[in-house]
Every structure is written in structure tokens, then in C-alpha cells.
């Protein structure tokens, strides 16, 4: 276990030193500033038009804006997850960074676990913090907070852990550039699948709904994102709920409690595949 902790410390330090982390932090500050500006404009426009913001409008604007913020957070988190892990095995081996570590008696599995825990912790904490910041901004400006305060952030964090595991698996077999491209394509496929599902719901097309549902289960970061979106207005009823559900960043689908063990098992399977691939790899 001490080997895992050592690798984790090494990887955490590497994560925080990398330029991508600074870039993501700068982007995050810009994103949150723009989000605050957009929230202020949206709520003040309604106030100017009607004099007051009624509860249904507050839910509608708050949930839609926060859904948008969650999408942005998911994207920034994915950027971080991919760039922190895209070259962990093959990329680092090609640069000569990996060999001095692998010949030590810690073992390849421990090395991979340490890298996963470090990148997973950075990305999960990052998306959770950005989500909470967006919630605080929405509450401060619009006076609305989600029905489930923590669950959407936890869902985003869970999605990050899955993406980190997939990126680590890719790094065993692909060069850093190829892995980065592949993971972003997987990420894009998940988002497109989710949008198709929402379109299917709106158009009442069972085929599109099936595609969306299958993609969500195949790429559970998308399912968790959808569940997180759903938790924003979980207790909401009436007109606002219907309109939020129709919006692109609104109600989405609750995938049920089964998505959590499924994601955990899936992530573990991806980790096992990465470990087996790494163990068999000549460096």
C-alpha cells in the first residue's frame, strides 16, 4: 500500500505541476465568471420584464442555467481527466519517464492504481468544487438551489472516475496523441447519445430513446451526468418541471440506483483490463 501512496503522491505532484492544470484553472475562473454574468443577466431580464421572479420562473431559469454549468463542468473535467492520464503508460514509456519507476519493486498494478487514485481524486474534486461554485452563484444571484444539493456533483465526480479509468486503459495500448483523440471521441459519443435520448423523449421516438439509454449504459459517465441533471429538479412538479425536462440542460433522465454499482463494476473491469495489458507490455 505504501507503494501506491508513493506513486499517488508522485502523480498528484505531477498533476498540479502540469501546464494543463493551470490552463484548466484559468478556464474555470473564466467559465464561472461568465456563468455568473449570464445568471445575473438572465434573472435581471425576467425581473425587469415582470417586476418580480415567480417560483416557477426561478426553477426554470435556475435549473436550466445550472444544467448548462454542469455540462461545462463535465467538459472541463473531461479535459483534465484526459490530459492527466493520456500518456501514463505508453506515452511515459516512450519519453523514458516510466522505466525508472517500473523497475522498482512496487509493481505495475500498484503503479496503475496510484495513478488512477491521483488523477481520479484531482478530477473528482475539481468537478465537485466547480459544481458547488456554480450552485453558490445560482443561489446568490437567482435565489434558487437544486432539490438535491450534493447528488449532481457526486454524479459528475463518479463520471470522472470512469473517464480516468478509460483513459488509463487507452494509455496502455495507444500513444498519447491517439489516446487523447480516442477518449474525446468516446466522450463526444456519450454526449451525442444522451442528446439523442432526450430528442427521442421529446419526439416520443422509442428508437432514439433506446439508443440514448444504451449509450448511457455503455458509457456510464453520460448516465451519471443525466442522473445528476435529473436530481437538480427531483422534487419539482408542475409546469416548470415539464419545461425543464424539455430543455437541453434540464431534467434529463434518472437512470436509477443501479447505475452506481454498474459504473463501479464497469470501472473496475476497465481497471483490470488496463492492469492485464500493462503487465503484458514490453517497455
Amino acid at each position, binding site marked *: 500500500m505504501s507503494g501506491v501512496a508513493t506513486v499517488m503522491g508522485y502523480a498528484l505532484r505531477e498533476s498540479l505541476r502540469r501546464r494543463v492544470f493551470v490552463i484548466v484553472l484559468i478556464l474555470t475562473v473564466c467559465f464561472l465568471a461568465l456563468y455568473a454574468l449570464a445568471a445575473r443577466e438572465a434573472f435581471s431580464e425576467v425581473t425587469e420584464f415582470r417586476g418580480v421572479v415567480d417560483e416557477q420562473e426561478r426553477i426554470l431559469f435556475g435549473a436550466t442555467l445550472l444544467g448548462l454549468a454542469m455540462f461545462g463542468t463535465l467538459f472541463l473535467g473531461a479535459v483534465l481527466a484526459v490530459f492527466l492520464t493520456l500518456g501514463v503508460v505508453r506515452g511515459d514509456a516512450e519519453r523514458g519517464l516510466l522505466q525508472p519507476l517500473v523497475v522498482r*519493486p512496487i*509493481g505495475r498494478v500498484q503503479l496503475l492504481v496510484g495513478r488512477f487514485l491521483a488523477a481520479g481524486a484531482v478530477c473528482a474534486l475539481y468537478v465537485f468544487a466547480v459544481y458547488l461554485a456554480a450552485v453558490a452563484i445560482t443561489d446568490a444571484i437567482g435565489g434558487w438551489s437544486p432539490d438535491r444539493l450534493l447528488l449532481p456533483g457526486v454524479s459528475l465526480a463518479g463520471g470522472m472516475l470512469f473517464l480516468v479509468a478509460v483513459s488509463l486503459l487507452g494509455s496502455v495500448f495507444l500513444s498519447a496523441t491517439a489516446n487523447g483523440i480516442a477518449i474525446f471521441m468516446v466522450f463526444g459519443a456519450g454526449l451525442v447519445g444522451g442528446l439523442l435520448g432526450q430528442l427521442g423523449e421529446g419526439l416520443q421516438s422509442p428508437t432514439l430513446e433506446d439508443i440514448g439509454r444504451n449509450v448511457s449504459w455503455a458509457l456510464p459517465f453520460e448516465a451519471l451526468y443525466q442522473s445528476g441533471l435529473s436530481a437538480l429538479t427531483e422534487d419539482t412538479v408542475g409546469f416548470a418541471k415539464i419545461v425543464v425536462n424539455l430543455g437541453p440542460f434540464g431534467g434529463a433522465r434518472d437512470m436509477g440506483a443501479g447505475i452506481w454499482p454498474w459504473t463501479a463494476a464497469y470501472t473496475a473491469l476497465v481497471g483490470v483490463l488496463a492492469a492485464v495489458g500493462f503487465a503484458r507490455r514490453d517497455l
Partner: protein
Amino acid sequence: MPPALLAQRIEKRYGRTLALRGVDLEVAEGELVGLLGPNGAGKSTLVKIACGLVRASGGRADVCGSPAGSAAARASLGYLAELFRFPGWYSADELLELHQRLTRSTGGAAERLELLRLVGLDAARHTRVEAMSKGMQQRLGIAQALVGGPRLLLLDEPTSALDPVGRRLVRSVLEGVRNRGVAVVLNSHLLGEVELVCDRVAIMRDGLIVADGTPAELARPRGVEIDTDAGTELVPAARRDDVPRLVAELVGRGTPVYGVRVLAGTLEEVYLEAVGEATS
């Protein structure tokens, strides 16, 4: 006491290419063995198999009695790759501390300072890797390989980026660790360096060891040169053992002898004879 490295009929296949074709090599404790050969001969592959970085397709390799690649084997060795890089944001001292934790070394700051002093980097202990020259990084790499007191040191081209002074320093480091009982496998293209420092030399070609012995054993006798008042006389068939007799005969004939030299082939000549024109 098991040998530091025991390779028996090691084979390695990369697709259709047979990189190693049944290599046998034994390195005893405290022995400094030079591994020579043209690019592509299989030297780095053999060293990587010993480290556990590459899996052999056939045969068996043991490090200090444990199968190569096992945790016990990796705990017994230190390694410096030909192409290596350390994270630029680490200082020399921090890098060694990281490797102390990875090897579970209990040497602490004293071990780190001793190793940095050994490779002449004690003044640069707080210098970041990114601010170091390639030569300094290579010396730091040697210090890193020595963390935890390995019983087998595997060095793949450790002096390729060093200037003559740096090379001499590394030679003295290698002699020092050998004197402490550490076995060293030195993979190098620098024949002169290998000849100067190694107890034994193994020459590889096309995935096989084609010559193996001490530099003196490998050096083919080329006769004896004798300086007399008539000039220098070469006796091509003579060896070292023939010198007393040759000198006695000359002196007996009243010919003054001013000097005698036993001629032997250089390692370079032996190497070129062993590998022919093979190169990458």
C-alpha cells in the same frame, strides 16, 4: 550465494524478428561485466529482460536467485536506461527521496547525500532536473540506480552524454561499487572505457554472445617487440612466456637489450573481428 545475474538460453522474439537467440550469461557478485555489440545486437533487450521491463520469449533469467521481473529481483537491482528522463520539477535530492520510498530504503538524507557526493552532484542537490545539463542528469541517473544499495547494477550506455571528466568520474564510481561487492553490467559502445574498467567482456552479435572473457583473454597475442642496438625486432610467434628465453638468447649472443614489449590485439580489434561489419 547465487550469481547476481544468471541468464540461460534467453530468447526474445518481436513479431518475426528474433532479437535474442539463446543467450547465456552469468555475472558473479562484485563482477563488472561489459556488454558490447553493434546496435541491434540485443544488448538492451537482454538488460531489459533482467530488469523485468521486457518479457523473455524463452529461457530463464534470475537476479540474485529470484526470477527476473519478480518483486524480489527488482528489489535487488538498480537500473539506468539508455533513454531516460526524470520529471523536471524534482530537485536531485527529491528525486532520490522518491526512489528511496519506491525501494523502501531506510538510508534517509545521509544516503542521498552520499550518493550525490559519489557522482559529484552534492553541490546541486537542490537544483531541479530541468535546470541540469544532460551530463548532470546522467550522473543523477547513476545515483538513482544506486538508491537502496542494489546487488546488481544494470547500466545501459551510462556515459553517452558525459564529457571525459564525467566519464572518468563514472569509471571511479563503478570501481567503487564493484569493490563493495555490487555486480555491474555495463552496456556501452565505448570500447576503451569497457577495457579500462571491466573484469569481463561479452560481445554480442545478432542476438548471441559471440565472445566472452577477460579483456586479457580476448586480446589475441601479436608477438613480442625487442629493442636492441640493431633496432627493433618483432618476433611474431612469441608470447609473454617466451620473453625470458628470448632476452637470455640475445644477451648470451652479446646483443644489448634496451626494451621488450609484449604485443596483444586491442579490444577494438577483437570486437571488430567478432562482429565483422555488423552495424545498425
